[in-house]
């Protein structure tokens, strides 16, 4: 995939995730402060459309961002070729996306 295309997606997802991560960090600190428990987490998320959308968006952005990032590191540090790199990126991205969306369903669906 072309360098400028990868770059554009990488940076757009990065900008998108800045507020998402800020919220995530606040929630983490808040939740652990009250003692991390499944009931606590699920009580907040189950049936919540807002949290469902938030986490879905987060998962999609993180999958794209992470997959492109891993591709870049493999390119520089492992010296892989373009086709292998593209394959790595797609596989890693799709795995992240599937696992991530499954997790969102797990914590949001009633």
């Amino acid at each position, binding site marked *: 995939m072309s360098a400028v295309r990868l770059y554009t997606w990488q*940076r757009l997802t*990065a*900008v998108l*995730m*800045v507020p998402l*991560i*800020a919220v*995530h*960090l606040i929630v*983490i*600190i*808040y939740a*652990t*402060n009250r003692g*991390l*428990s*499944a*009931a606590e*987490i*699920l009580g907040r998320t189950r049936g919540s459309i807002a949290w469902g959308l938030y986490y879905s968006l987060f*998962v999609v952005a*993180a999958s794209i961002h*992470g997959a492109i*990032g*891993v591709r870049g*590191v493999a390119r520089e540090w492992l010296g892989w070729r373009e086709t292998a790199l593209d394959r790595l990126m797609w596989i*890693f991205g799709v*795995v*992240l996306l599937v*696992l*991530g969306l*499954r*997790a969102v*369903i*797990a*914590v949001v669906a009633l």
Partner: protein
Amino acid sequence: MSARPHTTGYRGDRLWLAAMVHRVSGVLLAAFLPLHFLVLGLAIRGEAELDGFLQWTKSPLVKFAEIGLVLLLAIHLLGGIRVLVIENMPWRDGQKRMATLAAVAAVGIAGVFLVALL
């Protein structure tokens, strides 16, 4: 006779380190993310499964690892903001100070998390 040694005196410089920390934190987060999703996915099989895992996270070692993860996320976030600022804002001097500030802020966030945990 031996091969020419790598000359990399610039490597310890603060901004070089900032870029390296950003990369390493990114790789570690990428490695952790599938596990994170798998754990949350436990909730699919019911609250008890997830709680069983969260119970395990009460052990000191896991707590320690968690602090590390929050630190990683904070570091990668702040390092990323640094990159976005460099690439998209009018150039400014004092980049080194910015890198240091980012590091301090990341440690600060991890500190707050630590306090929350204990």
